[in-house]
């Protein structure tokens, strides 16, 4: 009983200490915190809000790309504004973005120097107490204490795992250590006390690039970033080990990288089914946000092994055909972002001639970022009477070169045992 009591006391003192710390930071840096808002010119109303924080004395403010994406894509449609701790409003200019790391730099006009947040010189240590600042749900600036839990292990783009509630509207707000140095930027949440932050070094890099040479065109900058990101992702995938896994009597490639996660399922327990179906799919569990209806940077791979237990070949093939009618992309785009798909098909044998596939390949092009495409591939084996293998992948926002290299490797890797 005594023991419990003393532990409670220690806990209480910790909480009050953290509270105090948070209050000091908040008071001191409140003038450097902003609500960033996009005003729809036609209606004059807010169309999205987020948080931002000043990182230089002369008014450079960091926030998330997704907070200002509407303005970045359609500057003619929106006004970019800030609201400071005194309730003052004024316009901002968009200076630079990092679309793949979801960061942006905006700037306000300042006549005299203002306090600003310093970017931390090094990453925090695991378990370190951090404070997330922001304006959740338009409720006013708040401080949320939490803990640093390292980088997300299986992610292609770096994310800090922050144990603490990051809510909508806090996006773009800074996460600071006890010295009030920025160690991350609020970006997303997975619910219950799991928050995701963009690491401070991404912001430092963006700021440094901005100092060296500010981008001449945001669209061109985004295009280059998307292009570099897909190149990085696809070459990473192509260079990694493609482990051949057995699926029924087929062999299918599973990319052995931590950020691609695979799942499997089958109907082996349902003995009355006329066709045995074994499914495996692998996917990159992240995407790049470009605008509210335009996501890119996704990868999906799916394999279906089908074995007929008692169907005649004609009936079996009819059954398989019904399963390949509606393959699609793994990302969402709108009419303004991309063309519709165009497709080709042919009967193909892999080099070692272990399998004959009907191969279907479809692609659509991005309208604003030339030489970036979404591609969908579908292969169906047509050389066995009682077995079939469906192999499928979809890549979003890749160059023709990347898509073709990936397709060639994928098509050669799928085979019978």
């Amino acid at each position, binding site marked *: 009983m005594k023991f419990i009591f003393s532990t409670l006391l220690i806990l209480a003192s910790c909480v009050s200490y953290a509270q105090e710390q948070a209050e000091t930071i908040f008071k001191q840096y409140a003038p450097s915190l902003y609500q960033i808002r996009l005003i729809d010119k036609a209606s004059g109303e807010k169309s999205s809000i987020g948080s931002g924080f000043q990182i230089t004395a002369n008014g450079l403010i960091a926030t998330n790309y997704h907070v200002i994406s509407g303005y970045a894509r359609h500057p003619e449609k929106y006004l970019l504004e800030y609201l400071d701790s005194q309730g003052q409003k004024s316009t901002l200019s968009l200076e630079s973005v990092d679309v793949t790391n979801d960061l942006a730099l905006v700037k306000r006009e300042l006549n005299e120097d203002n306090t600003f947040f310093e970017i931390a010189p090094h990453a925090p240590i695991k378990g370190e107490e951090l404070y997330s600042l922001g304006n959740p749900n338009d409720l006013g600036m708040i401080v949320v204490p939490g803990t640093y839990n390292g980088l997300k292990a299986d992610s292609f783009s770096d994310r800090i795992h922050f144990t603490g509630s990051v809510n909508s509207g806090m996006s773009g707000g800074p996460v600071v250590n006890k010295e009030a140095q920025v160690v991350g930027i609020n970006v997303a949440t997975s619910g219950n006390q799991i928050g995701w932050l963009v690491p401070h070094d991404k912001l430092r890099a963006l700021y440094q690039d901005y100092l060296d040479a500010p981008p001449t065109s945001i669209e061109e900058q985004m295009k280059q970033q998307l292009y570099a990101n897909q190149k990085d992702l696809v070459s990473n995938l192509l260079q990694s080990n493609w482990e051949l896994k057995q699926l029924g009597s087929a062999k299918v490639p599973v990319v052995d990288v931590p950020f691609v996660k695979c799942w499997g399922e089958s109907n082996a327990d349902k003995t009355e089914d*006329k066709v045995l179906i074994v499914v495996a799919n692998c996917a990159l569990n992240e995407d790049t946000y470009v605008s509210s209806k335009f996501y890119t940077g996704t990868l999906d791979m799916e394999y279906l092994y089908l074995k007929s237990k008692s169907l005649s070949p004609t009936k079996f093939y009819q059954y398989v055909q019904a399963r*390949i009618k509606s393959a699609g992309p793994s990302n969402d785009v709108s009419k303004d972002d991309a063309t519709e798909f165009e497709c080709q098909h042919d009967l193909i044998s892999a080099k070692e001639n272990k399998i004959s596939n009907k191969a279907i390949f479809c692609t659509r092009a991005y309208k604003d970022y030339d030489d970036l495409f979404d591609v969908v591939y579908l292969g169906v084996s047509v050389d066995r009477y009682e077995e079939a293998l469906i192999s499928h992948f979809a890549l979003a926002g890749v160059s023709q070169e990347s898509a073709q290299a990936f397709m060639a490797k994928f098509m050669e890797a799928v085979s019978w045992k």
Partner: protein
Amino acid sequence: MEIIIEEISRGQKLISRHKFAKSEINIGRGYHNDIILSDPHVCADHICLSFNGDMWTVNDIDSVNGSFLDETKDKAHGHQLKSGDIITLGKSQVRIIFPHHPVPESIAIGPIENLLNVAKHPVFIAINVLVFASIIASLHYINIPKEVHLTQLLEPTIKLLILAVTWPLFVSLISHLMKNDARVLTQISVTFLSLNVLLLGDFIETFVNFNTSSQMPLRYLVLIFPVAVLFTLFWLNTFIGFHTSAKRRYITAAALTLLLVGGSFANSQNKKQKQDFVKKPSYDSTIMSPTFQFSNTETVDKFVKDSDRLFDQVKEEAKKKPDNE
């Protein structure tokens, strides 16, 4: 001089034909007349045609509704008849023809007529219907990935049979109403024969789609086949059911084909347009069991190389600015 009097309908179709060798002919509703018309607008004694040794003359016997020449709408009373004159009495019409009136040249019974005679044979019809029914049943069979009982196939097959037989019945009814020979059996026979040919065409299309690559330029030719079959069916329907000129037959068949093919084409275009932006790709997913694979397979490299064209195509597409901007 002999005279021929034809009772004709409003559509100038022949109802009855009489030949007389006397010099006075009475036409009216009364039973004492030479030509008895049952039209209530015709008087008991309506007109009398008389021959004076040189000419036939019309005499109206003070009828209530009068008698008129069809061509000029003039009163017929006192008119000297020419061969081919049509006289309107009440709501009825008669045509006067003299023996020297020319007739069109005789039409030889063509090979098509001979074939159609074979087609209307009950055995031929039975075989065709049976083939159609079994194809429909087996198509249903292969699309159900379970054990199938015969009774499960019976219902959709019978439904489709009933649907298929409506068309020839409809055509026969129309031709009957237009005072032509209905020839129901022949119509049924050619309809089922065409349907079977269409189903065969369907199979050929599937086969071609499976065995050819999307790079093949002539693969769209298979789409012409069903159009040709439909045209032939409509042409035969017209040939069997209606006595019209060859030109009109072609026009009718072409119009019906256009209506059907164009209609379904417009429908699919319309559907496409309603969907402002299609997010999913549409591709040919035809696959068949290895038994039906006859073409050689290509290499992966060739397939990847082929995709260059596809990339160029969508790149071009992306460069086009939307119309409303």
